[in-house]
């Protein structure tokens, strides 16, 4: 059984790991390969700030809410392991700020210690009148991808740097199952009018005195269009840019100013912080994640494709729940093809 995962961001690598973990002992031989034109540090995941936090409202999507929770619980269970730091994983607390009172988010019971901000805390943020405090998790994209790559390499998963032009070429190359984790570029393999790039730009600074995330919300303007400050393990990410449909991969100076002024206003101590990097990335925006099977016919054989893309700005937040779901779909494929020696008990 040859499985090809297309895409080496957090979705591709975590799905590859999840599939291999669950099936390598019950399905032999199982060859898993990762094809991608970009690997860390050049993926969208590398640009992400790395904070576990879903959107404010789950838009009625119970499945996604469940995958978010699964991901948090999975990460929380690893937070005490000695490898947490090498995974890029650590607890982090911080502030969500609003201009007016808002309902509590659906994820308030998933994060730890969720509460409203006290008046004295709000004093620190004169532009905002309401907010939350909670403890969440940081999962730094670059470190996590490096860690995933190490785990996959240990398992004999092989990586190939190549730009895939079509599912057909991969199928004709001998893949039995293709897992499509191509993120913002999924439309190049199969047109998807629901998928759009949500361009983001971030500035990374050296500001080790900042220990909390601070995320502001402007409900009129929309998600990620208001300043945010998210400390990572070494650097602090400053952001606040979300441009639908903009494919420009170049850092934009106006966006730089928007981020810098917004974040310095929020946190005056940043004034003297040293800038260490500036990056642009594309959130794969979709009304909901496309996580489903599709059978494609090339010549005489059927190729199973499992789509797993469209995670918007919450890919790290939801990745493990989606990987589990993709692995479940993979299991269905195996059952249908009567390929399992023993039905895995954990399905």
């Amino acid at each position: 059984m040859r499985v090809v995962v297309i895409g080496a961001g957090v979705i591709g690598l975590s799905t590859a790991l999840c599939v291999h973990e669950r099936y390598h002992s019950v399905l032999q031989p199982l060859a898993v390969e990762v094809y991608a034109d970009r690997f860390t540090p050049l993926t969208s995941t590398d640009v992400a700030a790395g904070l576990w936090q879903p959107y404010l409202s789950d838009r009625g999507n119970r499945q996604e809410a469940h995958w978010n929770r699964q991901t948090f619980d999975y990460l929380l269970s690893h937070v005490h392991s000695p490898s947490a730091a090498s995974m890029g994983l650590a607890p982090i607390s911080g502030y969500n700020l609003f201009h007016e009172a808002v309902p509590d988010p659906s994820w308030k019971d998933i994060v730890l210690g969720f509460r409203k901000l006290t008046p004295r805390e709000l004093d620190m943020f004169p532009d905002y009148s309401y907010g939350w405090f909670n403890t969440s998790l940081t999962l730094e994209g670059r470190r996590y991808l490096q860690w995933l790559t190490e785990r996959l390499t240990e398992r004999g998963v092989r990586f190939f740097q190549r730009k895939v032009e079509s599912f057909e070429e991969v199928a004709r190359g001998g893949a039995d199952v293709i897992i499509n984790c191509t993120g913002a570029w999924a439309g190049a393999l199969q047109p998807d009018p629901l998928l759009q790039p949500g361009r983001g730009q971030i500035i990374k600074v050296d500001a080790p005195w900042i220990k909390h995330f601070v995320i502001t919300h402007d409900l009129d303007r929309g998600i990620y269009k208001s300043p945010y400050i998210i400390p990572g393990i070494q650097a602090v990410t400053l952001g606040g840019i979300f441009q639908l449909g903009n494919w420009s991969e170049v850092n934009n100076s106006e966006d730089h100013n928007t981020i810098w002024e917004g974040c310095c206003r929020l946190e005056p101590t940043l004034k003297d912080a040293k800038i260490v990097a500036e990056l642009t990335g594309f959130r794969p925006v979709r009304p909901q994640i496309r996580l489903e099977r599709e059978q494609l016919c090339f010549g005489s054989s059927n190729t199973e494709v499992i789509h797993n893309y469209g995670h918007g700005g919450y890919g790290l937040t939801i990745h493990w729940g989606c990987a589990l779901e993709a692995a479940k779909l993979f299991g269905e494929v195996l059952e249908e093809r009567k390929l399992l020696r023993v039905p895995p008990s954990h399905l």
Partner: protein
Amino acid sequence: MESQIRGNVLSHVPNGKQFCFPFVSGHWTSHSLGKQVLVAEPSVVPGRLCRDRPMDPVRVAVVGAGVMGLSTALCISKLVPGCSITVISDKFSPETTSDVAAGILIPHVYPDTPTHKQKQWFRETFDHLRAIANSAEAREAAVHLVSGWQVYRSIPTEVPFWADVVLGFRKMTEAELKKFPQHVFGHAFTTLKLEGSAYLPWLEKRVKESGTVTLTRRIEDLWELHPSFDIVVNCTGLGSRQLVGDLEIYPVKGQLLQVQAPWVKHFIRDGSGLTYIFPGVSNVILGGSRQSGDWNLTPDAEISRDILSRCCALEPSLHGAWDIKETVGLRPYRAGVRLQKELLARDGRRLPVVHHYGHGSGGFSMHWGTALEAARLLNECVQALRTPAPKPKI
């Protein structure tokens, strides 16, 4: 033997042991009797010689350049008009006790000081530092907010007096306690932390901006400062045991590890106060130890291993910490902070002293509040000096 002064101080009058004072630059040198005296350089700044006139600046010597000495000097410069201040110490940052201290704002409880006083000092310190943490000075002063947990192995009977001074104080939830399997209860809150080795130089800069001068010199006897200075502020911490004969103050040695573990963003403190993890700007501090009566400043390797082991039990990711440095400091332990005026008298001479020392493990937590109080006491001394009254003949 000579030692240079870091700034203009005072001069020597050729007719004997007494000092007089227009402000000139000079240097310390050995008198033929072996006593250190100050010799004036030729350039004399015209100044008033008579100290009885009310407009003369009152000359204040602050002895000690740890967080107490520097903060008190700063408070005096801001609050008590008409003072000229000199900070005198044998040690300045980075060689003071304050440089070793962890710098977290969680008060130590003084059995002999009324609780309302401790709360007032803590609140004053917290509010003062919070303003710095929110300003562009935060980076240089290395003052910042930090959130975290204080965890207990048995349920405490009382809520700490400082609960409503820190931010967001509340009980930990069951889910949060899962992170600490050996503890059954906890408090979560947000407080402040500073780094002594950055905060002290920052204080020193502020202090100098206000016209205060600093002088590196070991004072063996407060009377050395008479009559060059009108009032002495004693911020010598443990040094007071010898300097003023206070046997109530004694060292409680503490050993700390400074490590690199930049993913640790929360403080964790065991309710007993013996084990703690405090993330700072340039390192994470792991502690600690308490050895009463031990004056030895050499780190103990066994204690370091034990600290690391206890901290890893609280936070397993610390197994990955690197660049581990050991430091040792002596907490100036006293049942109560000594904030008190005293009028020293000898051979018809008088020297008002304001004592400001004895903060044990709670120095940073209280420093601004007690410095304000010391400045108030100093102001009382200044008022007393300026009250026209017959002065004893010298």
